[in-house]
């Protein structure tokens, strides 16, 4: 399978990438690691006229622990996040989830920014950043802006990014010793989650997010509220599927996905030490 023809621009700075996006408009797509975009292009589900390759933009692959936040450049690869001892100490859930993406070859190419900008509800990292209340730093012709993860994932493969904007940094809080868990249910090694549940313990209970339970990654709002109101983890997790409209496919019916959301959320809360 070969992508449809496209024009190629190699950007060597984020300013160059933004200039190229400005000149090609919404016919252009940014290419980072390419492990979400290129498979779509090979299947001709995506046929951008122009690819702006940001894979060589220097200085966007950093992982910095800064006080009570971790700042990660959008081009940090999954493998870098997975293997960073500093990140593992500061925000272990993110390091763990990065190591659950695809397989080692995929993690060697895929980037955090690319995964978030792709905004796939079935991907691991969007839900993790959502559960962490991460902040996404976006650059564009109207200047830099910060978007809360809760506002970033808008719909099916749709984010708050405008066509002329670029995600440049992701910030998540240092969670340190707080309990956490990612429960990923797959039918095959290396696969996307049939359903996944992230939990991160915090003062009033836990923050949670769900993978593949709708058109976008979802916060487990009902579960969080129940925990804050004093419910047990077992009772709260029973609300995990409330209001969700997951899809049905070969691997799971809608009802089975709802069942998985409840079970996996319960397991994630227990593993995160939330009683």
């Amino acid at each position, binding site marked *: *399978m*070969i*992508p*449809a*023809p*496209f*024009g*190629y*621009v*190699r*950007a*060597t700075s984020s300013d*160059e990438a933004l*200039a*190229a996006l*400005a*000149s*090609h408009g919404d016919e*252009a797509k940014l*290419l980072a690691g*390419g*492990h979400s975009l*290129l*498979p779509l*292009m*090979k*299947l001709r589900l995506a046929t951008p*006229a*122009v*690819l702006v*390759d940001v*894979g060589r933009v220097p200085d966007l*692959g*950093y*992982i*910095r*622990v*800064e*006080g009570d936040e971790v700042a990660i450049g959008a081009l940090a690869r999954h*493998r*870098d996040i997975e*293997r*960073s*001892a*500093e*990140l593992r100490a500061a925000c272990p859930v993110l390091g763990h989830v990065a190591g659950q993406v*695809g*397989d*080692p*070859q*995929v993690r*060697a*190419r895929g980037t955090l920014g690319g995964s978030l900008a792709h905004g796939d509800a079935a991907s691991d990292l969007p839900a993790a950043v959502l559960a962490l209340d991460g902040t996404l730093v976006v650059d564009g012709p109207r200047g830099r802006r910060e978007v809360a993860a809760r506002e970033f994932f808008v719909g099916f493969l749709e984010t708050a990014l405008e066509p002329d904007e670029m995600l440049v940094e992701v910030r998540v809080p240092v969670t340190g010793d707080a309990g956490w868990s990612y429960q990923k249910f797959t039918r095959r*090694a*290396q696969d996307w989650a049939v359903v996944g549940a992230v939990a991160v313990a915090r003062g009033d209970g836990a923050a949670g997010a769900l993978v593949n339970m709708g058109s976008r990654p979802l916060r487990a709002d009902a579960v969080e509220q129940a925990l804050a109101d004093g419910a047990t983890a077992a009772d709260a997790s029973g609300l995990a599927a409330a209001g969700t409209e997951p899809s049905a496919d070969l691997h799971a019916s809608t009802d089975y996905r709802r069942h998985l959301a409840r079970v996996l959320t319960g397991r994630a809360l227990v593993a995160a030490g939330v009683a």
Partner: protein
Amino acid sequence: MSTDAATSLTVTVTINGRRVPRTVEPRLLLVHLLREQVGLTGTHVGCDTSNCGACTVLLDGEAVKSCTVLAAQADGTEVTTVEGLAAPDGTMSAVQEGFRQEHGLQCGYCTPGMLMATTSLLADDPDPDEAAIRSALEGNLCRCTGYQMIVNAVRWAAERGGATVAGEPLVRTETPVEVTR
């Protein structure tokens, strides 16, 4: 920089130690550069959807799926294919020899990818246990062996030389992480 979009570009990829310049279409995939333009057909195309790992090569020392990398993205990099694993005198690497000694293959279709992924694994972890081996090879599918012989082959290699490319140890360079407190 021009923001004009190129419809062809010249890339130079160092493949198994040899600089190879080629003028390519932007949509050319690395696996097709290797197989069709350079004639290195040891790298196989299996699923073509970044699933099976038959097309695995080393890109700057790290295993990647060459069906999901543009030749344009590989410009300026060093690529090692299965043809570049053995020492210059033809002596097979420990990984290759391990697959031979432990019969880590039947039909052989997945084998080039298995060899490259194993070489990358042993550069990261010179002494992996069975669970680490199975996890590290999750991106490589074999439909013949049931994997047990492959696990044995990786252990064989780990105990007798580890990760080498063209007779030299494969050394991983890590990205330094900045810590500001």
